[in-house]
């Protein structure tokens, strides 16, 4: 799989994501710096990693969303290239207008850092096809601004269109309807706060995240 990981100043999960992609697909991703205005040719997947891009200045993800490379990422997504935004990457994608809603400070203000159980709400997407419908899985979270909010109409639309990909089983950060991850309307952009790239082999304490990348690889290869 020909993939790219976008790197912003302050990204810190870019290497974890690169290792996950290489382990699953056998190919190292291109690491693309935020100032690049063009992406490598023939990309089949783009990852926007976690971290604290631009020190979370103004709002988490706000600066990164306006960086030159994000225009190219938007164009690629519009052409149907699968894009995943994990944690800060999810914040970047909402700030860039590629996903609806916003990620606010956690409801209890504390940084949440622990494995959390999730329910796979949509097992038909190109990211989740390897999971069973309603399967319970565990991904770690590590965030301060993971409180997903959107107006009621937008939330109803997400639910009605099967665009809630993952939901927290327990209260984690105050997110509306316990939403942990959502898809765009075309289904090729996924944003989620939990970290699948941190659970791809048993030595990580779990491997539930591996199937996300395997499923993606299968879709891309098909």
């Amino acid at each position, binding site marked *: 799989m020909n993939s790219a990981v976008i790197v912003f100043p302050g990204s810190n999960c870019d290497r974890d994501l690169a290792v996950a992609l290489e382990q699953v697909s056998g190919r190292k991703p291109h690491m693309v710096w935020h100032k690049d205005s063009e992406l490598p040719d023939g990309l089949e997947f783009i990852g926007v990693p976690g971290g604290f891009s631009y020190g979370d200045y*103004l*709002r988490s993800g*706000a600066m990164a969303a*306006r960086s030159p490379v994000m225009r190219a990422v938007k164009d690629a997504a519009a052409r149907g290239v699968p894009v995943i935004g994990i944690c800060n990457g999810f914040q970047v994608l*909402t*700030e860039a207008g590629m996903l*609806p*809603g*916003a990620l*606010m*400070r*956690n*409801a*209890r*203000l504390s940084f949440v850092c622990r494995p959390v159980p999730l329910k796979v709400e949509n097992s038909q997407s190109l990211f989740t096809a390897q999971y069973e419908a309603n399967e319970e899985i565990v991904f770690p979270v590590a965030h301060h601004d993971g*409180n997903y*909010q*959107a107006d009621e109409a937008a939330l109803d639309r997400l639910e009605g269109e099967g665009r809630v990909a993952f939901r927290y089983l327990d209260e984690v950060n*105050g997110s509306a309807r316990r939403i942990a991850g959502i898809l765009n309307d075309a289904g090729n952009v996924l944003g989620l706060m939990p970290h699948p790239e941190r659970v791809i082999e048993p030595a990580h304490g779990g491997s539930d995240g591996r199937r996300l990348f395997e499923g993606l690889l299968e879709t891309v290869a098909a």
Partner: protein
Amino acid sequence: MKARVFITLKNGVLDPQGKAIHHALEGLGFSGVNDVRAGKLIELDLADGTSEREIEEMCRKLLANTVIENFRIEPLEHA
């Protein structure tokens, strides 16, 4: 010229920081506080002649996230 931009959370959007400040004020014995909402103040030093429309565009494109925030522009006297 200078302008100030006030950014506040929209009504109905839960403000965890405002809530924590409220609790802290109560903890200090200030019992008459009904509610607290926290926001941001951004001061802009602008080229003379910058139109309010341009400042509004700055707010919409970057300074505020209009999904959850409102903004108010206060142009100041020429400094």
